[in-house]
C-alpha cells in the first residue's frame, strides 16, 4: 500500500516486557531490534523471534549502541527492570543519537518525576497505570481522567452525584474556574452538545477538557450543594 518505511523501534532489555513488546510489534510489521545483555537469554529470544532482531550487548554502552542502527530509530524503548539503566539508555539515545522519541519503563513510580525532568518523552509506570485502574474500579463516584497527549490537558469524565449542585443549571450559566470547557454531556447513553441553553439533568455524565482541573477539583465542582 504505502511507500513509507516501516517504523524502526529499538528495544533495550529482553525480559518479559521487552520480549513481548518485540513480538507484538513484529506481528504488526514494525522493524524491531531487541537488545539483551545476557547471552543465554538472548539465545532463548532469538529462537522465538529470529536472529535478525536480537543483539547481545549492553544498552547503555555507547560503542555497542552505535552498532544497532539506533541513529535511524524512530523510537527507543528502555524496558529493563532497572530504572537507572533505562534512564541512562534513553538519555544516550536522545542526546547522542538524536532519537526523536524515548519511552522508558519505570518500575518505581516515585522515579517518574525525574524521568520527565530530564526529557524522557514517555515514562511508563506500570504501577501507576494499575493504581489508576484500581482506583477507578473502587471509586463509587465514577470520575475518570484521561490525559490528552500533546496539550498536557486532561479530559475528565464525571457521572453527576444525585444531589449535585449542577442539576437544573443552564450550561450557559455555569461559571467554570480557569480555562475549562464542558465538551460533552452524556445523557441516557447519547452524547448531547453542551450549548448554552442546555439544562443539566440528574443522571448526566459530564466530560470536561481542562488544563487546570484535576479529578479532585471536578469532584468539588459537581458535589451536592
Amino acid at each position: 500500500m504505502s511507500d513509507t518505511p516501516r517504523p524502526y523501534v529499538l528495544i533495550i532489555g529482553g525480559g518479559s516486557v521487552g520480549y513481548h513488546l518485540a513480538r507484538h510489534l513484529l506481528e504488526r510489521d514494525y522493524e524491531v531490534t531487541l537488545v539483551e545483555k545476557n547471552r543465554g537469554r538472548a539465545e532463548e529470544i532469538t529462537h522465538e523471534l529470529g536472529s535478525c532482531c536480537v543483539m547481545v550487548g549492553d544498552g547503555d554502552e555507547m560503542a555497542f549502541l552505535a552498532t544497532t542502527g539506533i541513529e535511524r530509530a524512530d523510537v527507543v524503548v528502555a524496558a529493563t527492570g532497572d530504572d537507572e539503566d533505562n534512564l541512562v539508555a534513553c538519555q544516550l539515545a536522545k542526546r547522542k543519537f538524536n532519537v526523536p522519541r524515548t519511552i522508558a519503563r519505570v518500575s518505581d513510580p516515585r522515579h517518574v518525576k525525574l524521568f520527565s525532568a530530564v526529557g524522557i518523552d514517555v515514562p511508563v509506570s506500570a504501577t501507576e497505570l494499575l493504581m489508576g485502574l484500581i482506583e477507578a474500579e473502587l471509586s463509587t463516584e465514577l470520575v475518570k481522567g484521561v490525559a490528552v497527549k500533546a496539550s498536557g490537558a486532561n479530559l475528565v469524565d464525571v457521572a453527576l452525584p444525585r444531589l449535585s449542585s449542577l442539576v437544573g443549571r443552564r450550561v450557559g450559566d455555569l461559571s467554570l474556574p480557569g480555562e475549562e470547557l464542558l465538551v460533552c454531556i452524556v445523557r441516557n447513553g447519547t452524547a448531547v452538545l453542551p450549548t448554552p441553553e442546555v439544562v443539566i439533568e440528574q443522571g448526566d455524565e459530564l466530560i470536561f477538557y481542562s488544563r487546570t482541573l484535576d479529578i479532585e477539583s471536578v469532584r468539588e465542582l459537581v458535589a451536592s450543594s
Partner: protein
Amino acid sequence: MLPEPGGAPTPADGGTSYDLSEMKCVILGCGRVGSYLARLLDGEGHQVSVIDLDMAAFNRLGEDFGGNMVPGNGLDEQSLRRAGIEEADCFAAVTNGDNRNLMAAQLAKEVFGVRRVITRVYDPIRAEVYRDIGLETICSTVIGAHMIHDYLTAATPAAQPRSA
C-alpha cells in the same frame, strides 16, 4: 581516540554565593571513596550525611565520625530527604554502580536543585557523555591510568636533564 581525564572540575558558582566553611554535604555510597570523602569533609568541619544500603559499610567511617549515617537507597526521595538533601550545598554519588550514581546525581540536581553535584563514574565513555549533559563526573579509571602512564613513561634524571 582515548578519553581524556579532564582534571578536577571547578564549580561554576565560584564559591562566593554561600559559606564554604560549613557546607551541608550528602554522600551516596559508603565504600572506600565515600567513607574517605566523608571523613575528610567531617574533619574540616562540614555537616556530612552518608547514605548506604548496607549498614556494615558505615563501619568504615570510624568511631569519631561526627556526621549522620542514613541507611537507605539513595535513588528514592525519602532517603535523600532524610539525609538532608533539601538543604544540601553539595552532593556526591560514589556507589560502585555507574548508572545508580548518574541517576542519583540527576535527582539531586534536577529535582532537588543542589548546587554542587558530582559523581564518580567507572566507564570512561559514559563519563564523557554525562559531562556533555552537564553533570560533573570524575572518571577514576582514566585518571588512574594516566597517573600510572605518567609514572611509567617519565624520563629518568640521568637520561634527560629537565628543561626549565
